[in-house]
């Protein structure tokens, strides 16, 4: 299978990339690591007129500190995310979830920003970004703007990115001393999540002071399990309290039915996985 012909641009700066997107015609696709886009183009489910390849835009790679946040360049590969010391210290949930993405070959090419901008409901990183209150810095012809995670994921494979815009970096608030865990259920030969749960928990004096929970593949976009978060706030950190709170995990979700799982099974799974994710994050 071979993609349909396209014009190819390989910018080396964000400004050049914006220019290439602006002058690429009606149907432009921005390629990050290409690990979702190239398969889709091979199947001719996408046949863009122009592909703008960000692989050589060096300023979009790497992780840095900026006051109370770490800033992850959109083109930072999954492999680099997994081994990054700032992520390990301030947002280990990201590294843990990224380790479950695809396989080592795909993680060498695939990128943090690419996975977020692709916004596949079965992808692992959107729910993590949502749970951690990440902010998305987007560059466009008129300058830069920042979109909170809660507004970035709009629908199935659809984000707040407008035509002509490029996701440049993701700001993640530092959370030192939080317990975090990503609990995922998937087929062995396919790393896409059937359901997964991202949990971050702050404990204080034997209680759960605060919990943040993101759900993967429980609807067309990642979701926060707000009912569980509210039920956990201030409870004693015990297995019983966590199980009682996790029973609310399916509230407000809208999971699909597909070859892997029916919707009712997903609603069951999410309660089990939430209990496990929160228990591990809370050190129980």
């Amino acid at each position, binding site marked *: 299978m071979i993609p349909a*012909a396209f014009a190819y641009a390989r910018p080396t700066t964000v400004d050049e990339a914006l220019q290439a997107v602006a002058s690429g015609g009606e149907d432009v696709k921005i390629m990050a690591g290409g690990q979702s886009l190239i398969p889709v183009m091979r*199947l001719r489910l996408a046949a863009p007129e122009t592909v703008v*390849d960000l*692989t050589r835009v060096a300023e979009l790679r790497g992780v840095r500190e900026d006051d109370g946040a770490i800033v992850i360049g959109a083109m930072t590969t999954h492999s680099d995310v997994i081994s990054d010391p700032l992520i390990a210290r301030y947002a280990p949930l990201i590294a843990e979830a990224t380790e479950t993405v695809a396989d080592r*070959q795909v993680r060498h090419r695939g990128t943090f920003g690419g996975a977020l901008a692709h916004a596949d409901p079965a992808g692992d990183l959107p729910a993590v970004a949502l749970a951690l209150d990440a902010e998305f810095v987007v560059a466009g012809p008129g300058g830069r703007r920042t979109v909170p995670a809660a507004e970035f994921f709009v629908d199935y494979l659809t984000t707040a990115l407008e035509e002509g815009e490029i996701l440049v970096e993701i700001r993640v608030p530092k959370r030192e001393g939080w317990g975090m865990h990503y609990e995922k259920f998937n087929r062995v*030969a396919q790393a896409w999540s059937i359901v997964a749960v991202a949990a971050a928990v702050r404990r204080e004096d034997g209680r759960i002071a605060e919990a943040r929970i993101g759900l993967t593949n429980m609807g067309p976009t990642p979701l926060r399990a707000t009912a569980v978060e509210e039920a956990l706030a201030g409870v004693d950190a015990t297995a019983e309290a966590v199980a009682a709170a996790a029973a609310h995990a399916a509230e407000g979700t809208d999971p699909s039915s597909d070859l892997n799982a029916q919707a009712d099974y997903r609603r069951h799974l999410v309660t089990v996985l939430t209990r496990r994710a929160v228990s591990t994050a809370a050190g129980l």
Partner: protein
Amino acid sequence: MSQISVRVDGVSYSDDVEPRTLLVHYLREQLGKIGTVVGCDTSNCGACTVHLDGEAVKSCTVLAVQADGSEVTTIEGIAASDGTLHPMQKAFHEMHGLQCGFCTPGMIMAAIDLVGDNPDPSEDEVREGIEGNLCRCTGYQNIVRAVQQAAHEMQGTAAPEPTGAQA
């Protein structure tokens, strides 16, 4: 057409490619490197795995034009020039890490990449490390043994005694 310069298995090439040409097709059809195979064509099976600047990638999911200026190593480039097999190739041979052999080029390239990051992987770590490579003869048992034997040979230590029945 785009012009690319690329080093493949130690030899430099300059070629014109269409932007839509996949790296695997460039390797096989323009350079004749047919040791790298196309398995699934859907980025699942890993049979087309090569090293791009030292990292294992699926060459069906990289554009040839993206390899411009890079170094590519295929299964054809890992044996010594006198024909001595790479320790990973030798171990696959000795441990019978293949049945039909179709997944083998990709398995070996992924396994070399894994051992580069983790010189002494446990059985579980090998299984995780080659999760991007599918063997449909169900031959993973001996593949895992081969990777562990090669890892020890590459480190210059003896492999642990294999346990359990031969799969």
